[in-house]
């Protein structure tokens, strides 16, 4: 065994101390992890190009030249366009009625302002392209593609000194991206928060690692503790991609009520379903997900129609801070998130536990 089992090729590639990547939507969490020896990727998929440029500057001003990443959700399929009004008119009366019944049953308050969805232009190819161009122009150290294949901009990115990571849920996606020459592949399993593939983390990580050659593989999906980190490295990964772990950190901008729910939640209290958006995703259970999971519930509508139904519930819950109604994307590792610690402490605890796990096993073998 190497003298430091946590020193991986991902560490060498990025010049980081620990092979832990925090995926977060919170700049403060990102900066804390980066300055503590880990790596952070800021999710910017829903931001305008101008906001993305401002966030990049904000991070650069605080990390003293250390590398960081920006994640975009490049779309990989887009239906022919409809206007919001056209979309709303297509929602069946039966579904609208079911949503209204939930609202009445749980006394869901109205949103305080306009529903975000109604003022958002949508993420079509043009919008995603404009976001990407900002990252290329700013020469961010790492671009992570959270969904689509980044192959088409690899050459341009590499010319600018940018490393490109791609997130996959299937082996054939990984092969396509490895053949294109991505710098690292994030193999994400079913345990993960938000959108996931159907393959479990143990299986997808080992399968992708076996085909990756010298390209670093990063394990994602349920990775929450040092033991997960140690296991991921033994599966062939060179690092881990973590999300839920940081949601309840001190620096996180997640609402305090949701943080408290995350700290109390177990793996069984996440649900994998399509009632929020019409696309399967893993979130903290809430009345909305529970009602739509009942046998008498109508089948969820495809996106974006289901989101048109759920947005009133979600924004009403959030605007009025109703603990009993709110939800958040969370992975199955949420049961290990039990204390509201500084991000730096979370990182160090994970590293120490991973080292202890390795030492424990080596001791048994000796």
């Amino acid at each position: 065994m190497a003298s430091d089992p946590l020193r991986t090729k991902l560490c060498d590639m990025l010049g980081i101390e620990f092979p832990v990547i925090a995926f977060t939507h919170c700049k403060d969490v990102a900066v804390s992890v980066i300055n503590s020896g880990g790596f952070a990727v800021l999710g910017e998929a829903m931001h305008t190009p101008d906001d993305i440029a401002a966030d990049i500057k904000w991070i650069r001003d605080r990390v003293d030249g250390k590398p960081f990443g920006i994640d975009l959700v490049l779309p990989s399929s887009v239906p022919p366009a409809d206007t919001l009004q056209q979309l709303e008119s297509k929602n069946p009366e039966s579904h609208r009625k079911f949503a209204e019944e939930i609202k009445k049953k749980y006394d869901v308050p109205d949103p305080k302002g306009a529903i975000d969805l109604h003022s958002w232009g949508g993420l079509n190819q043009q919008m995603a392209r404009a976001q990407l161009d900002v990252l290329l122009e700013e020469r961010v150290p790492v671009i992570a593609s959270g969904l689509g294949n980044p192959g088409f901009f690899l050459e341009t990115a590499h010319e600018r000194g940018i490393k490109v990571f791609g997130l996959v849920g299937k082996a054939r996606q990984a092969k396509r991206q490895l053949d294109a020459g991505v710098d690292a592949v994030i193999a994400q399993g079913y345990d993960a928060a938000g959108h996931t593939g159907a393959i479990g983390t143990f299986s997808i990580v080992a399968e992708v690692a076996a085909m990756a050659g010298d390209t670093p593989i990063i394990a994602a999906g349920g990775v929450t503790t040092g033991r997960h980190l140690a296991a991921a490295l033994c599966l062939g990964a060179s690092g881990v991609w973590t999300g839920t772990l940081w949601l309840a950190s001190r620096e996180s901008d997640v609402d305090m009520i949701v943080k408290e729910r995350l700290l109390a939640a177990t793996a069984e209290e996440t649900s994998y379903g399509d009632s929020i958006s019409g696309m399967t995703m893993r979130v903290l259970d809430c009345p909305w997900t529970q009602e739509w999971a009942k046998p008498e519930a109508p089948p969820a509508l495809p996106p974006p129609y289901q989101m048109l139904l759920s947005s009133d519930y979600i924004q009403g819950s959030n605007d009025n801070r109703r603990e009993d109604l709110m939800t958040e994307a969370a992975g199955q590792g949420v049961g290990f998130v039990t204390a509201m610690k500084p991000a730096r402490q979370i990182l160090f605890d994970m590293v120490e536990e991973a080292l202890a796990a390795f030492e424990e096993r080596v001791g048994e073998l000796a």
Partner: protein
Amino acid sequence: MEQLKTTTSTARPGFDANVAGKRAECDGGHAIAGTRYAGRQEFAGTLSGEYVDHGDPVWRWYLLVELTQKPDGYQQDSVWCESGNLFIVREERG
């Protein structure tokens, strides 16, 4: 800073006879409006040959029609798929 070579110029449509009529699968998905979430969607169908290129470097999208696999409730008969996520299906020989 050197002049930016990337562009978000107007989409440029075209037709690729080499793929027209071929069966393909798409590991699709996109971000979900108004949220931090995204979702995956799987499709299978026939490539019409129509494509649209966005920007430089070129980001190519193909139109998949006659869908034989699509998410439950998906109402359209076609979908635009990013070329990097399209997988041509090898035809069985009779």
